[in-house]
């Protein structure tokens, strides 16, 4: 008994249940994705699934299209979100907290419901549902993820650096590009990662926003994984997505550290 007590009074062990839980439900499942990708329905080793992917033009096209949409969406979010974050972080801006909360508040409304309402709004205005609607909806859903990290870094930034630059003769434009932008880069990178990753893997929004006319990679994975016979091929597609995600988060980490 006293030995058990001793183990638990060393607080290091308190994380063990969590570590065990994570090993079981995070690490093992991720390994399983790899295992399923390299096996066929009977559980035998095969690389045919990968061969299928590289000759499956629909999958590759959808993949490239999704990445393109994600890149576009991230760029739009950055272009719209950076000025908003910059304005909110200004010293003479009176109600930054309220504004920041107002930008986050819509996220408490279920995003699918918001998407349906967006579709309805497009209908009301007589706008067609297509690529434009898709980009609008994605941007609409993920804009707060871009604004918030940028706002955070800009707000924490030491304003005396900007003043120093201006004292040394930089005009507003120069001090913005040479001082503020480089200093806000960590926020920009985490914003990019936070917008790009969910966009590239999104699967329900695209269906609703385009009346099923445009298929993104996420929907493709969903189709295959929910079909019992094609589960292994679905695992290959998930692995491809996982690689993209890994690369993105590595990029984010790397850039942020620098």
């Amino acid at each position: 008994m006293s030995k058990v007590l001793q183990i638990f009074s060393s607080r290091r062990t308190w994380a063990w249940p969590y570590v065990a839980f994570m090993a079981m439900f995070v690490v093992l499942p991720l390994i399983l994705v790899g295992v399923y990708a390299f096996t066929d329905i009977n559980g035998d080793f095969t690389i045919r699934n990968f061969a299928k992917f590289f000759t499956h033009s629909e999958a590759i096209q959808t993949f490239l299209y999704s990445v393109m949409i994600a890149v576009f969406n991230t760029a739009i979010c950055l272009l719209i979100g950076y000025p908003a974050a910059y304005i909110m972080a200004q010293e003479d801006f009176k109600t930054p907290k309220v504004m920041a909360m107002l930008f986050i508040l819509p996220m408490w409304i279920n995003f699918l419901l918001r998407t349906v309402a967006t579709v309805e709004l497009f209908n009301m205005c007589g706008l067609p549902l297509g690529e434009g609607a898709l980009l609008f909806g994605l941007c609409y859903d993920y804009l707060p993820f871009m604004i918030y990290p940028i706002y955070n870094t800009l707000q924490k930034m030491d304003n005396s650096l900007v003043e120093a630059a201006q004292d040394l003769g930089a005009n507003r434009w120069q001090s913005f590009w040479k001082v503020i932008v480089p200093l806000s880069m960590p926020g920009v990178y985490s914003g990019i990662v936070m917008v790009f990753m969910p966009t590239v893997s999104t699967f329900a929004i695209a269906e609703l926003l385009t009346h099923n006319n445009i298929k993104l990679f996420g929907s493709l994975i969903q189709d295959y994984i929910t079909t019992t016979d094609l589960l292994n091929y679905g695992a290959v597609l998930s692995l491809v997505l996982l690689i993209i995600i890994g690369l993105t988060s590595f990029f984010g980490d790397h850039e942020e550290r620098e």
Partner: protein
Amino acid sequence: MRKNRNILDITRLRYIAIPIVLFLSLSCFAQSNVTYELKVGTTGENALLAEFPESYAGEKINIRIQYSEVSIQNSESLDFIFADKPQPLADRFDSIYSYTDEAQVAWTVWQSKKEIKNRNRRVMAQNAYKTFDGYVRMHTAEAQRSRGWIWWLFAGLLLVGTALYGGWIFYERRKEKSLTAVEQETLRRKRMGLRRHYGSQLYLWLLLIILYAPIALIAVFSFTKSKILGNWTGFSMDLYVNLFTGKADAGLNSAIWYTVVIALVAAVVSTILGTLAAIGIYNMRARSRKAVSLLNSVPMINPDIITGISLFLLFVALGMSQGLATVCIAHVVFCTPYVVLSVLPRLSRMNPNTYEAALDLGATPAQALRMVMLPELWPGMLSGFILALTLSVDDFGVTFFTKGSGGLETLSTFIYSDARKGGLTPELRPLFTIILLVMLIALIVINIRNTKQEEK
């Protein structure tokens, strides 16, 4: 000086922005019913059938038939297209429909002589109504949702706004010329500040209006009992009554309960697990702490779909039947890391020796945890708990893959399957209006409290 500066800053702009939003919402009210325009193309009935799911039976919409220059519009119940033997659309327009040769002649005459006989135009047009509806029946029609006048309203507001702004600048410039050089300089400086302020405020409010437009749509249309979102059939609180008396769709009721149960279970379990883990991680040696932190960040980096699919594969491989238990496990997986992250900062803020002191003074680890650590960690745990609740309620991707096919639906998956069927259960609108209001009130309360604390 102070007075002037206030003219266009946020406190004043509020008075412009709020009426605009109100006006936009009111314009939704004014836009009565959804209008469908039938054009010559495929048969109107079939086109409408393709447009609406059967759950919309009983709904009233406007149908406008447009042919050449004349159009008729009738408010019609959609039932006629769901009947076993759909009634031809033209029969629905009894009052004006009666095809006669005479009308055909009148139509032709009107068409050829309309330039000359403007005087008789109205009479002729009335006759022509009779004719072109026959066309609709004989020929084919295509249903298309007509462009609501909200669109024109947006454009109009933009135009008026630009004109007013331009006018204001013009007026200021005119005034400026009569001033002395010093006054001009002060004015210029003042206006530079003002204009920047004005432009950036406008930008933020514009973004917010766009961001809130779909939500305003949901909120406004929660006060009408129409099944179609965007179809106004008069003010009514029926949807709220249905929601609270359980008269809503049975699927929705069970979805609400499942969402609440799953969120509570996931939040409680992940708060306990996460707090213990945070204490453990905090006391680890640097290397193992780094490893566990990395493990902790994996579910946060993973997008929904990957977490969902990998867990789905695990449950398939283990042969577990998917249902409530698997969804709860999955939610704990993606909630716990956030709890860990919200408890860790509290730990680094507290004195690490108090726990050991308690042990030395004879407390058991459980007592030391309850009486020494919990009071310190409480705020972090609470924010972790709330975060876990929100994440769980909001989740769609993970739930979708782990809920199995046993008919378990949470709100998210319920909305998804509903939207794919084509219609949205109307009671969702009051539900989310209430959620939005609660969040808004919470935000205001927190904000007031923060400002009070800052003042102190």
